[in-house]
């Protein structure tokens, strides 16, 4: 009896509700599709702007090491290489540090210190990248050139396998310095997500592990990390995405030279830095088109990297027998 009364009374409300629901659905779908449309629009307009470069150089644009505005020969290999190498260095530094920060703040640190450290890390994320660039140039690069790079030269430079990575004059400006500055920049992004997801691990799981006699390392490697795997990978790729596209900080310390060198101590160029440096004075159509084509390639590189990440995640889930 009571149920009937409710359903009768609610009928007009339900009709009005479906209209609102539909409107709500359309609005949210529109918002989602707008992003896709913007993405496609950006990609197409960059491809269109870069068509002259792609027509002139074909696939050679990607493999060529030339960047000669006088003879109008352009190739994207050096900037792509520089972008990927600096981002890789950044990840090598940022991943362990960020996960360490996350674990320390959730499991190990005394409660009173967690708040201040968490806020300090989030403040790091709020520093504009040009400040990192200036700090990199005026403080960090001289330190690298005076202390770190000579040491690397002496101790690793003669090594048969990794030696070529650490040889060359220690000028302090180059891929290694740029990678480290990038690493520092993306630590707050990865670590704040890591802290949140580590906090979300059900205490019961950890307590069970402790009850079974697990050490802290075993809890991390067998409970916390597997449980939060997809969120952590997501956080890492958020950081990577920022590293790939970072412009100002990299421009300051990378050296902006279109040289290909095996050594991490040597200057190089990145896609974003090349565009920022050269766009204002790109005085021929082909030059300008090549820079827009570079922007398109950055888009493609980012897409490929994210696709690989997604694929990796799917495989990991399959290996661990998880379906979601």
């Amino acid at each position: 009896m009571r149920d009937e009364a409710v359903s009768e009374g609610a009928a007009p409300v339900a009709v009005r509700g479906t209209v609102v629901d539909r409107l709500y659905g359309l609005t949210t779908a529109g918002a989602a599709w707008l992003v896709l449309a913007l993405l496609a629009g950006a990609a197409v307009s960059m491809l269109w702007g870069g068509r002259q470069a792609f027509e002139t150089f074909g696939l050679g644009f990607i493999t060529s090491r030339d960047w000669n505005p006088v003879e109008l020969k352009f190739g994207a290999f050096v900037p792509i290489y520089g972008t990927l190498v600096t981002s890789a260095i950044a990840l090598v530094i940022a991943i362990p540090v960020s996960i360490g920060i996350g674990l320390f703040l959730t499991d190990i640190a005394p409660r009173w210190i967690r708040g201040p450290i968490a806020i300090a890390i989030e403040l790091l994320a709020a520093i504009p990248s040009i400040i990192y660039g200036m700090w990199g140039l005026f403080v960090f690069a001289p330190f690298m050139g005076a202390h770190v790079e000579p040491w690397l030269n002496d101790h690793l430079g003669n090594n048969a396998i990794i030696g070529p990575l650490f040889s060359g004059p220690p000028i302090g400006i180059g891929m290694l310095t740029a990678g480290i500055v990038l690493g520092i920049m993306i630590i707050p992004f990865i670590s704040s997500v890591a802290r949140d997801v580590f906090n979300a691990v059900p205490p019961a799981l950890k307590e069970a592990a402790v009850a079974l006699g697990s050490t802290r390392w075993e809890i991390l490697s067998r409970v916390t990390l597997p449980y939060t795997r997809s969120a952590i990978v997501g956080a890492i790729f958020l950081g990577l995405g920022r590293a790939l596209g970072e412009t100002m900080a990299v421009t300051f310390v990378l050296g902006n030279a279109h040289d290909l060198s095996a050594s991490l101590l040597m200057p190089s160029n990145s896609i974003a830095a090349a565009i920022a440096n050269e766009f204002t004075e790109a005085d021929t159509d082909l030059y300008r088109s090549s820079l827009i084509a570079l922007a398109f390639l950055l888009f493609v590189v980012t897409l490929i990297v994210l696709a690989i990440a997604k694929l990796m995640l799917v495989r990991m889930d399959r290996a661990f027998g998880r379906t979601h």
Partner: protein
Amino acid sequence: MTKFSIIIPLAALALAGCQSNSGNGNQAASGGITGAGSTFVYPVLSAWSADYSQSNGTKVNYQSIGSGGGIAQIKAGTVDFGASDKPLDPKELASSGLVQFPVVIGGVVPVVNIAGIDAGKLKLTGPVLADIFAGKVKKWNDPAIVSINPGVPLPGADIAVVHRSDGSGTSFNFTHYLSQVSPTWKSGPGEGTSVQWPTGVGGKGNEGVAAYVRQLPNSIGYVEYAYVVQNHMHWTSVQNASGKFVAPRAASFQAAAAGADWTHAQDFDLVMTNASGADAYPITASTFVLMHRQPRDKGRSDAAIAFFKWALEKGQPQAQKLDYVPLPSPLVQQIETYMGQNIK
């Protein structure tokens, strides 16, 4: 409701403010002139325009978007004048209906950061400079450098080369000079607002190169003269076409400008590097103003001509205060005749 009752009058006020602002803007635009281009000339142009608007009431809005951008904007006709550190050749000027003339002179100066070597102590020749920037001369105690610098304590350190990472008129004048004095440079990287540098690191803008040179021990770079003076950088003397080592300073730039053969240069298409004259500084450069031969808006074009006449005749104190070099007076007369003959 209360919120709205506050917001609406505020919004109305803001709108009214916008309208009155844009109204002023239109007035200023109809009475003022606009220009765009070279970043090198920006400080002196803005000093000139401030003084000129006080005395004559005409405002000059100049956007320092770079020489390449300035050329593009004047060709598109969106500005009343463009400014470029690199002259256009008469053919290109004719095809786009433009005229050009120089307005100020400056110099491109090699600067070094070597412990124990003060400003002006190091001497370089053109070919040695080219070999350093080509990466062929790698150490400071290379015999090629030591032989022209007897008694200077040159270290056995690697030379760190610093060049511009962005396209620039400074790079154009520098590479133009290197191409003139070194056949291997001419056939190698060549000349241009940006070239494929064989070695070194790139800094963005004069300030970027200056910062890198200051940071890197044993480095060499090149910057505009004004930067050398303002930042007390360690400049070097450069050997000129007559074989004399000349310090970069106003007098030696003016000697280069006076020695240059302006009378035979059609449309002032002349780069002053490696100029003749005993005291001429070899990497002297000038900034050129570009205007339409047959302007769409006669009034604005005339206002621009009046401004540049004033600047060339009466703008010397402002230019000198900012470490630019005014043009020699015969050249100023030649420019005024040229403007009268060519701009309709």
